[in-house]
């Protein structure tokens, strides 16, 4: 029945009502006119009148939490104004404002039933009107709900997109920071290496000249021979020294000074023969002193060589001069990395199985970052004496596999899929100066080289990283 | 405890020495004298070879005398014809002998002085007039050291002065002989300075204790009147010797004289107590109050005011008091059993002149105390000298007081070896001197000391004592 009540019907009903009002003087008194922007009632009022809009437009508005108001509904002629509040007796949820000059029928609290009863001709149209009003409001509500739903969905989708965009931004930011860091580090290293190289080579050269000077005229006499022996002596462990000190006390019972005994303990048997053969002519202390001098110069040589080697690998390790990929042997990079990290690797059992692999076009400096990341992570979890294995091999003709595995605790299964995610860490952040800046960057570097990286836990415990790189030749 | 050969020998000789007289029958010596001889031999062996610490020997001596020689002991429960046993209180009483109390007073004052840095601050002030010329600095150091060690222990004074001179030694050139001179000046001055007052060093206490057994009281001031002129000459000689032997290379040295007197209430109480006590000690002859009684006043006063605490009292060197008491105690029975008389009688003393005897005693004391503790030397020699003097066999001029002084003073003149006195050991351990330096200078001072002591014994002391 209600379905048939369309807009056309409403017009008819309205004109019927208009006519009836015009014809019935009694009803004339119900007609009220409002000027534009007049307020019929306010939000929160209890309504004592119900209006039927006969002409003009009325806006229903509602206040938001921030006290600004928005329009809820526009009412056209034929609409009741305040129908909900009037019928339920609750406070009005909206404020009704006239938009233009309007004409309404105003019913008091008890008038409505009275007029309906007095004018049977009005009963049916008004009831129809009221029903259609209610239906329309419900329809609006349904529409609103469905719009809200769509809106929420769109919002969610947009949020996801935003998140993704942010993540990408964050990633590239991190990468930039990392690159910046590496660039700065590279510059530092290059400058530092240059500065250290000079004194290191000076040390090396000077000690060689010193040795030559020392030996020039004395290589045949006992003092010179002792010096030579000192030069050739390898440093002894303290256990060896202790054991030899006991032998010295037996062999040279006439020596009682403990520091002299210790020095004698570091001299070879050949030196003892020299000492025994000439000790009547040359005091033992002088002979031992010569040996000690040789030993210290030898120490200088060893140490300066070590500095020079460290500097060399540090330089090639950082490779900041390299922007383009070059055709290189990746194993050189691995060896440099190991040298640079020797401080961390000192107390691990390092097993190297670097099989012949073809040269390939890579950015060695970036790859070194990857090795560093993985090795440093392993060092962090391995106890002293833990085992670390690095192996290279070819996979068919066009791929190289680098395998880095340890015998540490392995990676918890629930984390194994996440370790290449940016910002993933199980360590306290900021605790270490970052040579290794996250596996995410390693992953990215390998990806840019056209390879991939894979991690797994070995059956017998420990983590295994496998990196596959394609062989590219120019 | 590790025992070396010397100590083992001391232990065996001491025990044999104690037992043997029981099995001998020495003519002219009473049975009690035999017992006393045993104790004396044990004490001598133990004190000289030190199988046990010397203070332990001292209390052992007191106990042995009580057990074997007192009326309450095992052997002499009643008076016999040859021996009237002493009450055990006579031996125990030595632990509270007036000289012990006098020393106690000195200890408390010295301990408090160290606690409030009075010694160090006094040193800084007293050194100021001596300028910066090395030889006068050395003189200044010696004067101050001598002065302090007259009232404090020689060893504590030396340790304190080392903190003053080591910074000087460090800034000197390695080869500068002044280093040696400086390092030797302190122990020498401390040894000599100790002679100046009754509380300066334990041998003085042995002398005063032994004389008090003979009924002779030497007031504090009188001792100083007898000793100070000798100390001054000896100090000047030592100074002269050192700057001649180790001529300084530098013209001027600087000493850090900065430092402030502690002005806390307690410190001021101490300064007043120190000053007044010394004043009353020195003036004993005028007011007649015995120095041992005066010595109790600062002890009481400083403990009442809390300047000296329970911890400070525990830190006092009680073993030195035992050492002196043991010596006094030994003297009692040596005399009462007739042992001393017998020893004196067994040698033909009259063959020597009085002066020869003084020279011999002085020389023996210097020689012995170079190798033994000064106190032990005095303890072992004085009973002998006392008997000799009281028996009159040594003739005129061998006055009881004078011979005791000769031994007491000579015992402090030993400074030849690092082991001669603790101050010498401290100076030696700084590593700036060699034994031969110390021996060279120490022998000269020893010889000069003997001459000086004998000269005073002949000319000055008799004058004063009459």
């Amino acid at each position: 029945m209600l379905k048939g009540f369309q807009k056309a019907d409403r017009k008819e009903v309205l004109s019927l009502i208009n006519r009836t009002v015009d014809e019935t003087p009694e009803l004339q008194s119900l007609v009220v006119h409002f000027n534009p922007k007049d307020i019929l009632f306010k939000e929160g009022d209890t309504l004592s009148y119900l209006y039927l809009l006969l002409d003009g437009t009325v806006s229903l508005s509602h206040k938001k939490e921030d006290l600004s108001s928005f329009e809820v509904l526009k009412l056209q002629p034929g609409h009741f104004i305040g129908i909900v509040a009037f019928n339920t007796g609750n406070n009005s949820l909206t404020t009704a404002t006239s938009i233009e000059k309007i004409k309404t029928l105003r019913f008091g609290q008890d008038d409505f039933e009275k007029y309906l009863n007095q004018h049977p001709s009005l009963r049916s149209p008004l009831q129809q009107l009221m029903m259609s009003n209610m239906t329309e409001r419900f329809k609006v509500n349904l529409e609103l709900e469905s719009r809200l739903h769509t809106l929420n969905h769109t919002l969610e989708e947009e949020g996801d997109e935003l998140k993704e965009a942010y993540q990408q931004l964050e990633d590239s930011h991190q990468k930039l920071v990392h690159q910046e860091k590496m660039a700065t580090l590279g510059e530092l290293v290059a400058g530092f290496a240059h500065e250290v190289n000079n004194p290191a080579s000076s040390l090396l050269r000077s000690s060689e000249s010193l040795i030559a000077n020392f030996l020039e005229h004395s290589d045949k006499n006992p003092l010179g021979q002792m010096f030579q022996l000192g030069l050739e002596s390898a440093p002894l462990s303290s256990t060896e020294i202790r054991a030899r000190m006991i032998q010295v006390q037996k062999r040279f019972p006439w020596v009682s000074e403990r520091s002299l005994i210790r020095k004698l303990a570091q001299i070879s048997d050949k030196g003892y023969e020299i000492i025994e053969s000439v000790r009547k002519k040359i005091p033992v202390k002088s002979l031992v002193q010569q040996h000690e001098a040789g030993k210290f110069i030898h120490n200088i040589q060893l140490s300066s060589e070590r500095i020079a080697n460290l500097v060399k690998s540090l330089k090639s390790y950082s490779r900041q001069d390299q922007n383009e990929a070059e055709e290189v042997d990746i194993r050189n990079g691995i060896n440099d990395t190991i040298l640079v990290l020797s401080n961390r690797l000192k107390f691990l059992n390092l097993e190297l199985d670097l099989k012949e692999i073809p040269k390939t076009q890579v950015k060695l400096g970036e790859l070194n970052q990857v090795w560093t990341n993985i090795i440093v992570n392993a060092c962090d979890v391995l106890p002293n004496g833990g085992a670390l294995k690095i192996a290279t091999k070819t996979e068919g003709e066009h791929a190289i596999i680098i395998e880095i595995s340890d015998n540490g605790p392995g990676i918890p299964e629930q984390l194994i899929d996440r370790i290449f995610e940016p910002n993933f860490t199980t360590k306290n952040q900021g605790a270490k100066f970052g040579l290794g800046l996250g596996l995410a960057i390693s992953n990215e570097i390998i990806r840019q080289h056209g390879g991939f990286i894979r991690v797994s836990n070995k059956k017998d415990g420990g983590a295994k990283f496998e990196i596959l790189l394609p062989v590219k030749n120019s | 405890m590790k025992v070396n050969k010397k100590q083992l020998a001391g232990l065996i000789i001491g025990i044999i020495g104690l037992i043997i007289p029981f099995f001998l029958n020495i003519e002219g010596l009473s049975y009690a004298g035999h017992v006393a001889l045993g104790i004396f031999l044990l004490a001598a062996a133990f004190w000289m070879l030190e199988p046990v610490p010397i203070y332990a020997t001292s209390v052992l001596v007191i106990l042995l005398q009580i057990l074997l020689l007192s009326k309450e002991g095992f052997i002499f429960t009643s008076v016999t014809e040859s021996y009237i046993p002493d009450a055990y209180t006579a031996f125990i009483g030595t632990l509270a002998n007036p000289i012990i109390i006098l020393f106690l007073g000195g200890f408390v004052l010295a301990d408090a002085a160290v606690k409030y840095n009075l010694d160090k601050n006094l040193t800084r002030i007293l050194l100021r007039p001596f300028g910066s010329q090395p030889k006068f600095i050395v003189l200044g150091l010696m004067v101050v050291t001598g002065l302090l060690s007259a009232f404090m222990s020689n060893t504590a004074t030396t340790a304190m002065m080392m903190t003053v001179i080591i910074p000087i030694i460090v800034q000197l050139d390695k080869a500068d002989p002044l280093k040696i001179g400086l390092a030797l000046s302190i122990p020498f001055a401390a040894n000599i300075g100790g002679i100046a007052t009754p509380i300066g060093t334990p041998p003085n206490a042995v002398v005063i204790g032994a004389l008090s057994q003979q009924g002779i009281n030497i007031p504090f001031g009188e001792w100083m009147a007898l000793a100070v002129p000798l100390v001054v000459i000896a100090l000047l000689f030592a100074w002269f010797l050192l700057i001649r032997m180790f001529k300084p290379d530098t013209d001027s040295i600087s000493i850090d004289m900065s430092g402030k007197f502690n002005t806390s209430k307690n410190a001021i109480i101490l300064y007043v107590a120190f000053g007044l006590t010394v004043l009353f000690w020195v003036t004993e002859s005028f007011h007649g109050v015995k120095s041992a009684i005066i010595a109790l006043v600062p002890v009481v006063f400083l403990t009442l005011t809390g300047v000296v605490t329970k911890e400070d009292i525990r830190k006092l060197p009680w073993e030195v008091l035992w050492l002196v008491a043991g010596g006094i105690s030994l003297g009692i029975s040596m005399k009462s059993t007739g042992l001393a008389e017998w020893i004196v009688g067994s040698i033909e003393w009259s063959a020597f002149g009085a002066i020869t005897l003084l020279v011999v005693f002085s020389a023996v004391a210097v020689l012995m105390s170079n190798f033994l503790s000064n106190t032990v030397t005095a303890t072992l020699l004085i009973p002998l000298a006392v008997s000799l003097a009281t028996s009159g066999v040594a003739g005129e001029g061998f006055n009881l007081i004078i011979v005791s002084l000769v031994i007491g003073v000579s015992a402090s003149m030993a400074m030849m070896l690092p082991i001669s006195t603790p101050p010498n050991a401290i100076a030696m351990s700084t590593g700036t001197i060699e034994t031969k330096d110390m021996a060279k200078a120490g022998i000269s001072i020893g010889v000069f000391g003997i001459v000086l002591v004998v000269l005073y014994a002949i000319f000055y002391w008799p004058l004063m004592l009459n």
Partner: protein
Amino acid sequence: MDHQIYILVIEDELEVMDALIKDLEEFEQTFPIESANNTDEANLVVNQIYESGNEIGLILCDHVLPGENGVDFLISLESRKEFHKTRKVLVTGQAGLEDTVKAINNANLNHYIPKPWTKEGFQKVVVNQLTDFIIDKKYNPLKFMATLDAVRLAEAMRNNTLTDN
């Protein structure tokens, strides 16, 4: 032989050990030196020293060592009463703040010498630490005055109520 006070040096790099012992040479007359390349060896040496009735006055210990690290070793010693007065010094270039704080709090670390060290500074630390040890243990300072800080030892003597005898 008399009771000996040892200096124990723990350092794994042999060249560095050589240099450390060279700088300690002047002390060896008074304080015999023992060395160890790792803490296992150090424990062995420590036990030998104490079994023969001697003791350790000063431990100079590197931090980064094979096996147990220096700080943990010092902490393990701290639980033994006989080492409470032993002076403990870290000689290292590599102990981070965290480890150092741990050593100070749990091992009573007395000093920290960063590498590279200078002979003068190094010897000064050794002198100071051993002087503290001698004073703390109330040993007769005379034997040590020539090697260590004579002024402080004399000062300690002064406060210890010395006597003539």
